[in-house]
């Protein structure tokens, strides 16, 4: 059976990939996708640690994961709504052009 | 005797498995059931197409297919051959990969849905503890395939159809789920097997099917509506409304892929009505205690076919909705009512046994439905409709 480290490494990899996506893509939606990936990686960690914890019957880690999934759904909804409304205003989803807040 | 007949398939598979070396047994056991599913339901599909076409024909005062074979029984075969031999066209501008993957995803997802349906006593592929959740999770992924199909074929009809379909399926997935949650609440389990067993009891020879309770009945109505919408069938067939956008999201499909889509549609119909049967109509349990000697799987399939027939009938009867009507209906009537159903189910549960809960629950439901219906129907006029039949 797979050791915990395997899952952790996969999670780390997915997290890194997500981060890379969030950092390198122009399109706001894809940045959001990257963020979703990072969230998922975190969930994987949670579940993995739950599974390998001495008391899995306490359900703590998995519950956390379930809740974070729910929250992620909310986050996606709001984020995409924002992107759409920004697109309505600025006619673009390119983050490099969205720098109105420049100091 | 009756028992062996009832369990015949189970015994059969056991026997076959027992012939094999131990190492292979679990794998083969599963494979057998999978093969069975893959064999049975397409067969049903063929049967249903004939049924639908002839039934609709009669309803629309036509004859329906009657050339191939006696009473056009062989029509599906002919169709199958035709669709297999047809050229498989992929539009030049289409996104070939996605265009190819879409039907596969659809069919696979739909087939997976059958894994948790108990089609008879001890006749389910897996008795998952979260079976219902699994079913819906799989069902959710069909939307994606539809989108892929619509988007990949670079055709505004397809795209529009896909968007409509996805929007509609998402909107109606909520009530579909909600209407089943009541049952989960009462049964205290997400496992479809347990749900059926909970309904497989009799008082005075009458079954404890959930449809025979106030909330169950209301839930069933809601479920039927949502299911019809979920399977994109008339009156909710906007995504493939021929008169509006040629054939919706599979306009650009032809040949075998088209057949796959067709298959997928019907399999979806089967699985959803199988679910409805399992949840509300007592799955494989007999409608009367005295009829218990009839094998359970016969009951299951007859119930499924019955509900399919009803679906066909509805298709032959009701006109198509408009998109806004569709959405309003989903969000302003069906979903609130399913929510209400949850409350009623809770009341039912907490009032405990006795006549009181019947009265209270029915009262609440009736009251709200009457008022809600009034509000929805305010200011709408319905005139009589006159038909003229040819002699």
């Amino acid at each position, binding site marked *: 059976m*797979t050791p915990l480290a395997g899952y952790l490494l996969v999670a780390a990899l997915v997290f890194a990939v997500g981060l890379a996506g969030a*950092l390198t893509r122009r399109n706001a939606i894809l940045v959001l996708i990257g963020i979703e990936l990072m969230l998922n990686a975190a969930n994987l960690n949670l579940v993995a640690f739950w599974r390998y914890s001495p008391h899995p019957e306490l359900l703590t880690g998995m*519950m956390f994961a379930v809740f974070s999934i729910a929250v992620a759904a909310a986050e996606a909804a709001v984020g995409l709504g924002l992107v759409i*409304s920004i697109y309505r205003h600025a006619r673009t989803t390119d983050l490099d052009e969205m720098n109105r807040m420049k100091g | 005797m009756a028992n062996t007949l009832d369990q015949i398939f189970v015994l059969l598979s056991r026997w076959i498995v027992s012939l094999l070396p131990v190492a292979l047994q679990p794998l083969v056991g599963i494979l057998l059931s999978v093969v069975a599913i893959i064999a049975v339901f397409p067969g049903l599909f063929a049967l249903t197409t004939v049924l639908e076409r002839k039934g609709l024909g009669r309803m629309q005062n036509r004859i329906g297919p009657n050339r191939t074979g006696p009473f056009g029984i062989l029509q599906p075969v002919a169709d199958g051959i035709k669709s297999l031999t047809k050229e498989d066209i992929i539009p030049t501008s289409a996104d070939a990969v996605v265009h190819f993957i879409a039907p596969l995803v659809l069919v696979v997802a739909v087939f997976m849905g059958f894994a948790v349906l108990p089609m008879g006593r001890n006749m389910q592929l897996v008795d998952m503890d979260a079976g219902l*959740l699994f079913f819906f999770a799989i069902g959710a992924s069909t939307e994606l395939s539809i989108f*892929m199909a619509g988007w990949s074929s670079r055709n505004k009809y397809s795209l529009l159809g896909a968007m409509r379909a*996805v929007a509609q399926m*998402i909107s109606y997935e909520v009530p579909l789920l909600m209407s089943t949650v009541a049952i989960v609440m009462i049964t205290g389990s997400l496992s479809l097997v347990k749900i059926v067993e909970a309904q497989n009891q009799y008082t005075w020879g009458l079954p404890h099917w959930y449809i025979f309770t106030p909330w169950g009945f209301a839930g069933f109505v809601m479920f039927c509506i949502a299911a019809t919408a979920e399977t994109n069938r008339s009156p909710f067939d906007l995504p493939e409304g021929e008169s509006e956008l040629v054939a919706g999201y599979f306009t650009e499909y032809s040949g075998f892929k088209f057949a796959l889509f067709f298959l997928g549609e019907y399999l979806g119909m089967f699985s959803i009505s199988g679910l409805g049967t399992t949840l509300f109509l007592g799955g494989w349990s007999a409608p009367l205690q005295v009829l218990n000697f009839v094998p359970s799987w016969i009951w299951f399939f007859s119930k499924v076919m019955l509900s399919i027939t009803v679906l066909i009938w509805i298709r032959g009867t009701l006109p198509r909705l408009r998109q806004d009507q569709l959405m309003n209906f989903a969000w302003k009537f069906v979903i609130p009512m399913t929510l209400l159903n949850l409350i009623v189910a809770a009341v039912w549960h907490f009032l405990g046994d006795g006549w009181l809960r019947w009265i209270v629950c029915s009262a609440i439901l009736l009251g709200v439905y009457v008022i809600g219906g009034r509000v929805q129907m305010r200011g709408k006029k319905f005139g009589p409709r006159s038909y003229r039949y040819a002699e």
Partner: protein
Amino acid sequence: MNVVFWILAVITVLGGLTAVTLKNTVHCALAVTTAFAGLALLFLQLDAQFAGFAQILVYIGAVAILVVFAILLTRGSETPAEGVFSRTWFAGLLIAAAVFAVLGWAVLHSVAALPNESAAPAVTVLQIGTALMGRYVLPLEIVALLLTAAMLGAVIVAMHEKGEQK
């Protein structure tokens, strides 16, 4: 080391990679969906049925669709002229790599300390339900509130210009 895990891991990571590298946004969305699916299966590998199905239901059933919708509504699927990567993609890549390095380093360092496989917990949905209604009822309520708020917020944000258009 079992095979299934590695297959799933590869699927997931590949899905992620393609998602962040592909040009066509819709393809990215589809790729990320496979990544989600892979993760869900990994959950199942970890005997977390409920979480896995929830993952499928939420991510593939809802989030992916949302993303796709957003893409189509913002015409994101047309690849922009000046490349899909932002001007400073290199820095971003470096930093991501650094993050992975740190994380991986951390993991590998603590391999010895990590707990070993315990017997598969027999977690029934019933237990989860009772936990949700018992110990976790407050978080549950809060999440419900949050979701409602999010839904309203999303709706308002996305359609508040309706007045001007009509």
